[in-house]
C-alpha cells in the first residue's frame, strides 16, 4: 500500500515491535538503546538518518555535577540553579531526579565512547555556563558543563547511534510518522508511518510508543533550529486529544548569528567572551552585576533586546550586538571553540579570534511540551486530576517533565535527553516484564489516524506550504517574540485563526510516492501550526512575566495566580492551570525567591 493511494485500515499492512521510538535524536536513541540492550524488539522511526537529528547542533556541553573541575561540586547546587533558572515552575521532583541521576548517565556516555575533551588529570573537561553557581547561589560561578570541544551534541548523537548499532536496534531511517493510533480506551497502540523513499505505508503496532521528536523552533522566522524541527510529536499529541504544558515558554538564545540564525554557544561566554553594544560597553554589567554575561539566557536575551530597542545596537542598522572573543587568544578560540570559528567564518564572514561576532537573540528551545512524569509516561489532565495515557511516553524537547520550567539553563537540554530517554527506557523495560495488556485498535480507530493523509491526497486546490509557513512565522516573530503585549497577541491570534483554515486545506500538488519532500513539508506544516496556535493562545492567557515569557503589560511575576503550569487542549483551545511539583524526595523544596543574577 502506498502513501499516495486512498488508504484504509482494512488493507493496511501491520508491523509490530515491543517498543517504538518516534525520533532518532538524543532522547530517542537513549531510550532505544535502553530497550534494545534489555532484549526488547525495538525500532526507531526517524524522518532523517539519525545523525542528521537536531541534537547534532548542540555545541557547548552537558551540564552535570561530575566533580571533575571541582571535587566538591554537588548535584543539589545544580538542582538549586535549575529551579531558580526555571523561575520556580520547574517540577522539583523531576529536577532532583535529573541532577542526581545525571552523573551516572554522563559516565555511561563516556563508556560508550563519547570523545569528551579532557583535563590534565585525564578527566572530562568542564566549562562554566550561564546560571551556574556553587553553594546554592552563595559561592560564585560554578564550572559544571561537560564538553567535547564545542561539538558536544554531535559527539553525543554519533556516540548514541554507534551504541545502538552495537545493540542491534532496528532503524527505520527516513520513515515519517503521521499520527498516533488510539484504541477504544484511548490508549496509544502505535503509529501510522511511511517509508519516505518508496511511500510504503504501515500501521506500526506497539505497546510502548515513545515520542522523541524534538522541538519546533521553525514556528518563528528567526531560529537556531534545524529545518526539520517541526514539532511533529506535539502535532500528533494535540490531534489525539492530549494536552501540552507551558507551551508559551520559548527560549530565545542570546547569541544567534545575525542574519543567519545559526547558534553560537554560550560556551563562548563560559570561556571568557562577552557582549558589547555600539559604544563598546560591556552592558551586561548593568543588568546582572554578579553573573554579568553568564546570567540566565532569558535575562541576557532581554538585556540585548533592550540595548537594541534603545538605539545602542551595532552595525549600520543598529540591529545587533557584538560577541567579543579575540582577547582570549587564538589558542583558546581555536582549540576550545573550533566549531564556532568555522560557523563564524561561514555565516558572518569573521574570524572570532580577530573580530567580534554579530549576534542577536534567536528562537532556540521549547521549554514546554507534552506533560510527563519522571518515567516518561504521558500525562493528561481531567477535572484538575492527572491521568496517565497508557502506551504513550515522551522524552527530550518534545516532553515537559518539567525540568526547565520558564527558562532552561544552558547544558541542561543534553542532560534532559539522556536522563529521561534512559528513564523512559528503564520504565518500559520493567512494564514489559510485568506484562502490558492493551486492546487492539479497530479498523475505525486506525482510519482516524489516516484522515490527514487521505485529505492531503484528495486536495485539488489551496495554498502552497511555503506561503503559509512564511505567514505563520512572521506572525509568531512579530507578536510572540522576546517581549509580548496583550493587544499584539490578540491580533496575532486573529491572524492565526485565518491561517488555520488555509492550513487545514493545504494543497499538495505533487502526489508522487517517491521521496516526496512536498508531502513531508505539508505534514510538517500542519504540525508546526498546532504548536504555533497553542503557543499564541497560552502566551496570551499567562498574564504575568516569568522566565522567558516577558510581557510589557504584565511586567511582574505573579506567584499568587501563576506559580502554575499552563495546560492547553487543542480541541477546546482552552488554557487551564496545573500545580507545580514542590515535592523532591531527598531534599527540602526550594521556595520561590526574587530572581537576580
Amino acid at each position, binding site marked *: 500500500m502506498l502513501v499516495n493511494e486512498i488508504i484504509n485500515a482494512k488493507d493496511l499492512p501491520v508491523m509490530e515491535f515491543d517498543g517504538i521510538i518516534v525520533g532518532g535524536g538524543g532522547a530517542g536513541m537513549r531510550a532505544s538503546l535502553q530497550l534494545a540492550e534489555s532484549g526488547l524488539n525495538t525500532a526507531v522511526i526517524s524522518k532523517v538518518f539519525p545523525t542528521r537529528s537536531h541534537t*547534532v547542533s548542540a555545541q557547548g556541553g552537558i551540564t552535570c555535577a561530575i566533580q571533575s573541575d571541582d571535587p566538591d561540586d554537588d548535584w543539589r547546587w545544580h538542582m538549586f540553579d535549575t529551579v531558580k533558572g526555571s523561575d520556580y515552575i520547574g517540577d522539583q521532583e523531576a529536577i532532583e531526579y535529573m541532577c542526581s541521576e545525571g552523573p551516572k548517565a554522563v559516565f555511561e556516555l563516556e563508556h560508550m565512547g563519547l570523545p569528551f575533551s579532557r583535563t590534565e588529570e585525564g*578527566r572530562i573537561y568542564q566549562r562554566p555556563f550561564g546560571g551556574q553557581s556553587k553553594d546554592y547561589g552563595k559561592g560564585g560561578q560554578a564550572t559544571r558543563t561537560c564538553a567535547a570541544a564545542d561539538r558536544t551534541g554531535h559527539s553525543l548523537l554519533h556516540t548514541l547511534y554507534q551504541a545502538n548499532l552495537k545493540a542491534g536496534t532496528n532503524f527505520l531511517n527516513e520513515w515519517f510518522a503521521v499520527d498516533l493510533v488510539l484504541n477504544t480506551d484511548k490508549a496509544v497502540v502505535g503509529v501510522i508511518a511511511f517509508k519516505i523513499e518508496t511511500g510504503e505505508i504501515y500501521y506500526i503496532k506497539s505497546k510502548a510508543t515513545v515520542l522523541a521528536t524534538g522541538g519546533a523552533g521553525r514556528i518563528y522566522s528567526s531560529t537556531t533550529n534545524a529545518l526539520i524541527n517541526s514539532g511533529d510529536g506535539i502535532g500528533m499529541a494535540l490531534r489525539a486529544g492530549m494536552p501540552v504544558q507551558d507551551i508559551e515558554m520559548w527560549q530565545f538564545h542570546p547569541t544567534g548569528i545575525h542574519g543567519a540564525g545559526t547558534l553560537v554557544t554560550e560556551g563562548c561566554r563560559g570561556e571568557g567572551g562577552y557582549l558589547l553594544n555600539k559604544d563598546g560597553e560591556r552592558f551586561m554589567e548593568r543588568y546582572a552585576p554578579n553573573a554579568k554575561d553568564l546570567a540566565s539566557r532569558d535575562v541576557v536575551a532581554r538585556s540585548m533586546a533592550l540595548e537594541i530597542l534603545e538605539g545602542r545596537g551595532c552595525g549600520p542598522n543598529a540591529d545587533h550586538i557584538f560577541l567579543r572573543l579575540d582577547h582570549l587568544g587564538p589558542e583558546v578560540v581555536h582549540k576550545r571553540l573550533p566549531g564556532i570559528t568555522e560557523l563564524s567564518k561561514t555565516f558572518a564572514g569573521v574570524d572570532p579570534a580577530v573580530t567580534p561576532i554579530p549576534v542577536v537573540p534567536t528562537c532556540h528551545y521549547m521549554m514546554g511540551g507534552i506533560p510527563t512524569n519522571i518515567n516518561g509516561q504521558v500525562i493528561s489532565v481531567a477535572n484538575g486530576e492527572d491521568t496517565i495515557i497508557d502506551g504513550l511516553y515522551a522524552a527530550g524537547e518534545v516532553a515537559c517533565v518539567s525540568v526547565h520550567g520558564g527558562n532552561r539553563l544552558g547544558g541542561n537540554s543534553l542532560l534532559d535527553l539522556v536522563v529521561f530517554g534512559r528513564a523512559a527506557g528503564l520504565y518500559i523495560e520493567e512494564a514489559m516484564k510485568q506484562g502490558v495488556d492493551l486492546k487492539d485498535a479497530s479498523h475505525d480507530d486506525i482510519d482516524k489516524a489516516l484522515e490527514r493523509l487521505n485529505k492531503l491526497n484528495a486536495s485539488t486546490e489551496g495554498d502552497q506550504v511555503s506561503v503559509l509557513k512564511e505567514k505563520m512565522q512572521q506572525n509568531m516573530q512579530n507578536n510572540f517574540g522576546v517581549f509580548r503585549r496583550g493587544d499584539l497577541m490578540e491580533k496575532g491570534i486573529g491572524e492565526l485563526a485565518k491561517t488555520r483554515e488555509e492550513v487545514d486545506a493545504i494543497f499538495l500538488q505533487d502526489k508522487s510516492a517517491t521521496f516526496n519532500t512536498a508531502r513531508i513539508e505539508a505534514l510538517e506544516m500542519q504540525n508546526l501550526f498546532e504548536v504555533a496556535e497553542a503557543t499564541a493562545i497560552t502566551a496570551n492567557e499567562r498574564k504575568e512575566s516569568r522566565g522567558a515569557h516577558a510581557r510589557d503589560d504584565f511586567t511582574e511575576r505573579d506567584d499568587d495566580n501563576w506559580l502554575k503550569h499552563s495546560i492547553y487542549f487543542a480541541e477546546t483551545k482552552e488554557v487551564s492551570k496545573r500545580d507545580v511539583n514542590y515535592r523532591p524526595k531527598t531534599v527540602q523544596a526550594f521556595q520561590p525567591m526574587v530572581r537576580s543574577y
Partner: protein
Amino acid sequence: MSAAVIPVAQIKTITMSIYRYDPTVDKKPYMQDVVIEIPTDKDIMVLDALHLAKAQEPSLSYRRSCREGVCGSDGMNINGKNGLACVTPLSDVIKRNKITLRPMPGLPVVRDLIVDMKQFFDQLEKVKPYLITKSDSPDIERKQTPEDREELDGLYECILCGCCSTSCPSFWWNPDKFLGPAALLQSWRFIADTRDEATEERLDDLEDAFSLYRCHGIMNCVSVCPKGLNPTEAISNIRNKLLTREKSK
C-alpha cells in the same frame, strides 16, 4: 529570506540547472533550468538558492536538515565538485550567472538530488564504528590524557555526508568491497582511541586486497571534505599500523 520584499534594484536573476528524475513519472533523468531571483546586497548559500527554486517547483527534492554544515544531509555535486549546499556560498560557485547541481556520483539516484546511501552505510557498519572494550568500566569515566584525546581530532568530526566516498574512483569501482574513505576514517577513529580494546580484530578485518588497499591515494576525499578532514592520512595510518604489526610478527 523572501525575494518578494527586496526592492527590485537589489535583485538579480540566476539560472540553476538541476538534475531531475522521479522514477515514477520520468522515463529518464533530465536537467531542468530554474530561474530564481536572488538579492545582490548579500551572499546566500546554495541551499538558500535551492529553497527559492523549490518555492517555484515544489516537486524538486533534496535532503536538508541543520542548514549549518553539521548534520551532513545536503551533500551534492555542485558544478562538478561534491560539497554541502548549506555551507557553500553561491558566490563561490556561480559562473556566468549559472550553477549546476547533480546528485553525488556513484550511488543510485532515488529522486532528483537524493541518492540511495545504503552502500555507504553498509560499508560504515563493516568497520564496527563503535567503541569496543573488554575490561570493566570504572564507576566514573575512563581516564584519557589531553594528548591521547587530541589523536581523535580530525576524526570524530565526520558528519557522514558521503561527499568523500562518492568522489572516490576506487569507491565507484568497488563500492561493495572497498570500504571507502568515510568508513576507513571511522575505522582509524576507533583504532586511534586509547580507550578502545579491539585494535587487533579491527586490523584483521582490514587485511584483504580490497577493504583498505584499494585506496590509491587519489585524495579526492581530502579535497572535497566539507569539514576539512583527511581520510587519506587516516588510511595511511592504518597501513602503517598493519605494516608494523607484520614486521613484529
